[in-house]
C-alpha cells in the first residue's frame, strides 16, 4: 500500500454517516450508518474507527473527499466544516464532490441523476454526453430538456417517473456514496488549492422586513 495515495471520503448530506477509506480506487474499508440525528457527534468517532480498522492515522492520509450535497443543509455543513478542518490540520487537499455526481459514478453513457429536494422538487444533473449544464433544482414541470432519443440511464429519487419522462431506463448507483466520493476525489489530483464548498442549489429562506421603513422628513 502506498501511503501517499490514501483517500478518506465521507458524507452526511442525507440521514446517514457514510465513510470510506480508499487506496487509489481500491476500497480498504467503508462504513455507513443510517442516522437521522447526531451526525455531528458520530462523524469523527466513526472516522476514527474506520482508520483504526486499516491501522492508519490521520497523518497517513493524502486526500479528503467530502460530499457537498445537494441535500440537508445542516448535514452538508457538518461534513464540509470537518473536511476543511482536516485539510488544514493535515496539510492535505479536501475535494468537494456533489451527491448527484457520486450517485452517477461509474455509470456509462448518458446519465440523469436525481435527488429528493422535498415538496415536489428534484435536484437534477445530467452526465455523459448530456452534460454541460450545472446541477439544478426543478419540479416535474420544469425538468430540463435533453436531446431526443438519448435513452438516458436515470438514477436516484423517483427514477421510474423521471425515466418515463425522458423515455430512458432506470439504473441503480454502482458504488456506495462514500466510495463514489473517494473515487471522484481521486481524479482531482491536480487541484490542490480549491476548498470544498456546500452545494445548496437553493437560496436561503430570508425575506426583507414586511413593514417598510417610514418616510423620513427633514
Amino acid at each position: 500500500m502506498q501511503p501517499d495515495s490514501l483517500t478518506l471520503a465521507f458524507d452526511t448530506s442525507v440521514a446517514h454517516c457514510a465513510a470510506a477509506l480508499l487506496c487509489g480506487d481500491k476500497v480498504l474499508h467503508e462504513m455507513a450508518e443510517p442516522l437521522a440525528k447526531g451526525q455531528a457527534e458520530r462523524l469523527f468517532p466513526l472516522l476514527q474507527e474506520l482508520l483504526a480498522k486499516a491501522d492508519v492515522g490521520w497523518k497517513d492520509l493524502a486526500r479528503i473527499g467530502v460530499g457537498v450535497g445537494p441535500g440537508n443543509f445542516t448535514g452538508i455543513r457538518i461534513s464540509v466544516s470537518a473536511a476543511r478542518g482536516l485539510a488544514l490540520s493535515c496539510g492535505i487537499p479536501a475535494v468537494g464532490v456533489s451527491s448527484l455526481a457520486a450517485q452517477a459514478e461509474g455509470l456509462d453513457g448518458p446519465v440523469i441523476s436525481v435527488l429528493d429536494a422535498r415538496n415536489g422538487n428534484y435536484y437534477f444533473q445530467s452526465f455523459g454526453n448530456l452534460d454541460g449544464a450545472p446541477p439544478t433544482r426543478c419540479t416535474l414541470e420544469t425538468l430540463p430538456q435533453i436531446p431526443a432519443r438519448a435513452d438516458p440511464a436515470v438514477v436516484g429519487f423517483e427514477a421510474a417517473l423521471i425515466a418515463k419522462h425522458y423515455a430512458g431506463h432506470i439504473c441503480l448507483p454502482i458504488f456506495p456514496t462514500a466510495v463514489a466520493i473517494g473515487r471522484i476525489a481521486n481524479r482531482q489530483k491536480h487541484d490542490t488549492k480549491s476548498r470544498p464548498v456546500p452545494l445548496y442549489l437553493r437560496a436561503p429562506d430570508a425575506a426583507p422586513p414586511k413593514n417598510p421603513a417610514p418616510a423620513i422628513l427633514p
Partner: protein
Amino acid sequence: MTETLTILGLESSCDDTAAAIVRHIPGSMPEILASVVEGQNDLHANFGGVVPEIAARAHVEKLDTCAEQALTQAKLGFSDLDAIAVTAGPGLIGGVLSGVMFAKGLCAGTGLPLVGVNHLAGHALTPRLTNQLAFPYLMLLVSGGHCQFLVVHAADEYTRLGGTIDDAPGEAFDKVARLLGLPQPGGPAVEQAAKSGEPMRFAFPRPLLDRPGCDMSFSGLKTAILRERDRLIAEHGGLRQTDRADVCASFQASVAAVFAEKTRRALSEYLALNPTQPAFAVAGGVAANSVIRASLETVCNEFDVPFAAPPLALCTDNAAMIAWAGLERFRAGYRNDMSLSARPRWPLDTRSPALLGSGKKGAKA
C-alpha cells in the same frame, strides 16, 4: 497554574466568524497574539437582523481562512499550540455546528486537545483577560442575544442574579432602528441619532422597575416606540429627523435608567457576598453604548466599586475571549472528546430557574 499555555480559539455562534490565539505565562498578563474577526453585516443588511441560514452559510467558508490568518498573524504553527477551544453554544446552531466540526477536524489532524467553551463564559471571563479581575466579580452581559447579571465565582461557576424575560437589549436597538428607518446594526445607528435628541421629551416605560429583583424586559418598550412613531407619522405625514432623534434619545435614556436601577440591586446582592476585591464589569455589544456605559459607571461610583469595561473589540463577539475561556477551562482540567455536541441552549447558571425559552431542550441562557 504553572504551565505557559497557548490556545487557539474559534467563534461562530452568531454573525461573526472569528479566530484568535491567546498565550498566558503564569504570573504575567495574558497576551492576545492574534485576533481575527470577519463580520457579516453586509450579508444581513437587507433583512433587518441576522438571518440564521445566511449566517451559517458564511461561517462554513470563513472559519478556515480566519484560523489561518490568526496563525500567520501570531507567526505560529499548530505545534506551538496546547489546545483548541471552540464555542459549543449557546447560539445559532448552524454556525455553532460549523465551528465545532471545524475544530474537531483541526484536533484530529494535530492531535491537540479539544475544549468546548460556552459563548457566555467567553464574555463573562473577558474581564480576567483584560483587567485580571479576581473572583468573585459582578458582570452585566448585554448584547444582541443576551442580557443577564452574573456573579462569576470561578471559570466554571456562575450565579445569575437576573436577566431579560423577553428580548435582549441589542435586539431592541436593532428593532427600534428598523422602525425608525435607521441602518443595521441598530446599536451604533440609534446612538448616533440620539446625540442630537432630547432624552426627556418622551416618557417611555421603564419596564419591571416596580418589581423587586434584577429581571428586565425590553419587549414592551419596543411597542411603546412603535406607537409613538405611528403617532408622529400621523401628525406630520412622515417621521421628522428631529422627532426621530428625540425618540432615539428617549429610548436610550429609558434603557440606561433600567440598567442603572437593576445594577444598583445587583450590586447590593453581590456586595452582600463580601467579595475581597469587589468589581463590576460589562461585556457584550450593548456595553459599547456610551450613554449606557456612563450610567453604569455612575452607579458603580455610588457604590464605590471599580468599573471594568473591556475594550470594544473584546466586548463584541470575538475569539480571543473563547481562547481565554478555553485556557481557563483547560487549566482547570476540562477536555472534550470528538463527540462534543453543539448546543443552541446552554445556560451558565444551571441552578437558577430558566428565564426564557425553557422548552424541551432546556433553558436558553
